[in-house]
């Protein structure tokens, strides 16, 4: 997988971002002990109906997150992928799945960081958490030229059967 226009954050920036995120989380009131963490709740709200509770997707309709390459990729690249709706899958006819992914740039840096950290921990083989600073950096990339050619490799190939 190759992503043009996205740069890896430096180790120092990543550390700084982690610190910022930790502070931001600490400042929020703790959720009730019996409710799932915010990232999981946000996943249920925005992602689950298509990608399903187990991240397995739906054959031919929506790709799995589990086994895909994006979930484990660079945090900033993953954030950009999700904010752009799979780099504009809605406008493309070459996608490997039936249904388009909408854009999620309307969510805040913190919300996206929560979702992405959840899917990486749960479906990404324990890939590192994504910080609000990672998302903010990706959001800055969004204003530059957006990549248009890459797509996830975890999906099926072939045609559609609802």
């Amino acid at each position, binding site marked *: 997988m190759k992503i043009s226009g996205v740069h890896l954050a430096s180790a120092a920036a990543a550390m700084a971002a982690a610190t910022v995120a930790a502070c931001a989380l600490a400042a929020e009131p703790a959720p009730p002990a019996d409710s799932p963490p915010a990232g999981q709740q946000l996943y249920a709200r925005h992602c689950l*109906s*298509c990608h399903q*509770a*187990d991240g397995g*997707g739906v054959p031919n309709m929506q790709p799995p997150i589990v086994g895909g390459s994006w979930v484990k990729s660079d945090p900033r690249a993953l954030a950009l992928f999700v904010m752009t709706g799979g780099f504009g899958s809605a406008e493309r006819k070459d996608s490997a799945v039936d*249904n388009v992914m*909408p854009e999620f740039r309307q969510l805040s840096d913190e919300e996206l960081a929560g979702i992405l950290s959840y899917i990486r921990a749960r479906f990404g083989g324990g890939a590192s958490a994504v910080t609000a600073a990672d998302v903010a950096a990706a959001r800055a990339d969004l204003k530059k030229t957006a990549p248009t050619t890459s797509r996830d490799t975890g999906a099926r190939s072939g045609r*559609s059967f*609802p």
Partner: protein
Amino acid sequence: MRSICLAGVVSLALSMVGGIAVAADNGGLTVPDGFTVTVVQDGLGAGRHLAIAANGDIYLAGRNGLVAMRDGNGDGKVDETAPFGNVQGTSVSIYKQWLYVSDDVGVYRYPLKKGELAPSGARQTVVSGFPKERQHADKTFTLDPKGTLYVNVGAPSNSCQEKDRQEGSQGRNPCPILEHYGGVWVFDGNKLDQTPASGRRFATGMRNAVAIQWNGSQNALYAVIHGRDSIDTLFPALYNAEDNATRQGEEFHQIVDGGNYGWPYTFFDTKLGKRVVAPEYGGDAKKVPEAGKYPDPLVAFPAHWAPNDLLFYSGKNFPAKYQDGAFIAFHGSWNRAPEPQAGYKVVFQPMKGGKPDGAYEVFADGFAGELTDNNPSNAQYRPVGLAVAPDGSLYVADSQKGRIWRIAYTGK
């Protein structure tokens, strides 16, 4: 070349009823008292629709291509299997001496010659040139006795939003998709090399009518339409997840010339029991469209059940109550998550004079088995195609493993 697995069929526990092998566990299905189930074929991969010729030969369409099957010794189980052709799609139907099939971009036919199982004759193109789309792309079809070809041209969209499936995105008005999609187009099934432009839009406002069928006893066209997805995630201020899982009916209609069935401007809300304006078009979860503009469905089936085939029963095997009634294969939901998935069954809708005559009943169930993680991927089987054999038994095709069941009435 694909290898065909018959081992699964052979190893099933069997008993014999009137010379027909009957699966001891009903092939995993539950059916009403008096019906027995035979697994006639297994392991073909993702099946779609079925057609059965007057001599009993079975033709299955699927994502792996077309397969012809024959039960040579009459024990109800396939013993000759012949993949053929080069069409990967959903629909298959027999009209006169032709086997009509379709894929995402066209409808074709093969000659059926006496004694031949897999057609040896060249494929002819009846219609081609539908734009290549991803969503709702199956060109399912049906033919009337004159050879009029009715093609379902599904809308490549959920609800004609400016941005498909984007939270809060408004509906395009008028929806430009309806010019070329989201309805039924008619062609002359006896003519070759037609294009979409040579067809005529017969009916509109239909998101995706995979289950489309000519009803011979009524001389009329019927369809069960896949309703819209995601009212909750697209308009969270109006609907919650439970609403999305339960309110958008799968609409069963008689389809008339010039009819408009309301997509994308409306959907039939099964909680309110009436048609409402879609949230993309100013709907507020209560607002109703102009009276009389769109017909109410004959039946609104539960949301997201995914009606994938429709069959009007006119065989001689089933008891009288089934005559002229409708069987519907529901492929099963994905968009009900996080609520429990549903569908995955064959339903019988009693009909009289072309209208529903009482409530629908579940006819065959148990296809999905344990739906681990509530994910449709984990369904054991998913019913997708229906056909009646010359002896009146009902055949059901599955899309998960390619199993085919024969359901017959024996009174036992």
